[in-house]
């Protein structure tokens, strides 16, 4: 009962300084929503990566030459296939293409025929020579649609026309935005590669527990090779996004610090009127502990309200507005940054972390000022 009454007075005291407190809540909520957006965004991307990259190849074997990525002889695949435990080992053909027209980089992938029908494609996968399927980003940048011809400039410096037989649906943007998928022969020809070389080799392993052992064996057989396991790929994404959100949080922490300075300042610079009020309260029977509780409730009201508002704003910003304010920061120079729809993966942990990051500094920066206010001498009221 007593606590509720002190809460009541805390609210009435906050309301009396509406503008000051509303501005405080606004700034606080904004800071929280920025931090929350960063967390939500990166967490969503992280889980998305973890969920869809599960079907990535168990092992990718690259060849290194002088520490650089080099084309790998296709016959390696045959040797690798003979290692016990290996299911399949197939050369993979892919490369990058800089498109001067749209000033952007595309990823070209060469595939073998007879793929099953994929559900996330409008039209069909390329099946004959001179055909290709493209990601939505490419389609938009080049203004082409299914059935159009798309010219690309090959490594021999001649213009090659490809017929667009399919575009990937926007749901798959996060994977396919910059892809141009074509037949293997077309790709070899386009990049002017010799037929006995591949970009890398993908390996399927029967028993997932043996992936590391097999990676070791490959490394022993071909010392210049570099096997990358699926787990590493997934862990890379985990780490990439943890790092990224950590970086951005560190950067935006300056906003938080600025806010705490503001909070400290507001709490320290209480006006003569407020000090007088506290004096009156103490004179008519409020104890220092009661005033401290009053200040505690004021803090709770401000931080809880800001926190909830900040969370709601961040949720709407990230998952309904696709993080439109944050995306310039993470886009960098990527011309084809995908317009993906984020999946709202959220767990209590995110919110807990956020509460820790934002509420602790605020509370800490108000403890001493509140105490200073709370010890106002009641006697002062008698002599003003």
């Amino acid at each position, binding site marked *: 009962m007593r606590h509720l009454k002190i809460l009541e007075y805390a*609210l009435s005291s906050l309301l009396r300084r509406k503008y000051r407190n509303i501005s405080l809540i606004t700034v606080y909520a904004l800071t929280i929503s920025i931090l929350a957006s960063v967390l939500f965004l990166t967490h969503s991307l992280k889980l998305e990566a973890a969920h869809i990259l599960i079907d990535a190849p168990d092992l990718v074997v690259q060849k290194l030459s002088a520490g650089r990525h080099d084309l790998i002889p296709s016959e390696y695949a045959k040797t690798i296939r003979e290692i016990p435990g290996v299911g399949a080992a197939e050369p993979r053909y892919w490369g*990058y293409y800089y498109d001067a027209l749209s000033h952007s980089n595309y990823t070209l992938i060469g595939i073998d025929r007879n793929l099953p029908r994929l559900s996330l494609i409008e039209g069909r996968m390329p099946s004959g020579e001179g055909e290709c399927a493209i990601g939505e980003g490419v389609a938009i940048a080049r203004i082409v649609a299914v059935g159009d011809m798309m010219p690309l400039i090959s490594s021999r410096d001649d213009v090659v026309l490809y017929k667009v037989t399919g575009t990937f649906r926007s749901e798959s943007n996060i994977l396919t935005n910059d*892809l141009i998928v074509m037949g293997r022969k077309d790709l070899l020809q386009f990049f002017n590669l010799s037929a006995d070389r591949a970009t890398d080799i993908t390996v399927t392993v029967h028993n997932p527990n043996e992936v590391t052992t097999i990676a070791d064996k490959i490394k022993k057989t071909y010392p210049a090779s570099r096997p990358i396991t699926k787990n590493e790929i997934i862990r890379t994404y985990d780490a990439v996004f943890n790092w990224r959100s950590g970086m951005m949080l560190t950067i935006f922490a300056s906003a938080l610090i600025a806010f705490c300075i503001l909070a400290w300042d507001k709490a320290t610079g209480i006006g003569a009127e407020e000090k007088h009020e506290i004096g009156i309260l103490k004179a008519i029977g409020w104890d220092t502990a009661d005033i401290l509780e009053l200040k505690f409730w004021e803090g709770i009201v401000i931080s809880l309200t800001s926190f909830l508002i900040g969370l709601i704003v961040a949720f709407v910003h990230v998952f309904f507005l696709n993080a439109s304010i944050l995306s310039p920061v993470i886009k960098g*120079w990527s011309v084809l940054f995908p317009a993906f729809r984020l999946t709202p993966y959220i767990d209590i942990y995110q919110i807990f972390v956020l509460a820790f990051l934002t509420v602790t500094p605020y509370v800490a920066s108000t403890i001493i000022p509140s105490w200073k206010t709370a010890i106002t001498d009641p006697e002062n009221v008698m002599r003003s």
Partner: protein
Amino acid sequence: MIKHKVFLGVTLLEITILLILFVYGHFTVTARAGSEVPAKRELVKYLKLTDLSLWTEARYTRHPSQADIFAPFQDFPCSLEHFPAGSIIAPENIVLPATRKPERPH
């Protein structure tokens, strides 16, 4: 004398909105897990994809998991890494497994 009730009410309302948003999020996740995620996994499987198509500005930002450890400095040993996305991408060596220790640059 009703301010505390109003406050508690507003807070409850905010919590309800948040809960609704989270429940909505949960449903979206489940819905997508049923439809989109398998389709995307299919793409990953058949096109043998290994990376998300997020940053296309440089090779190592387009395929962070496939890049070798020198990729950000690939042009010559002293070149500075300068792509914006590269600055917010984690240094790759933090996930090097023990098996590849000899390859670390230091």
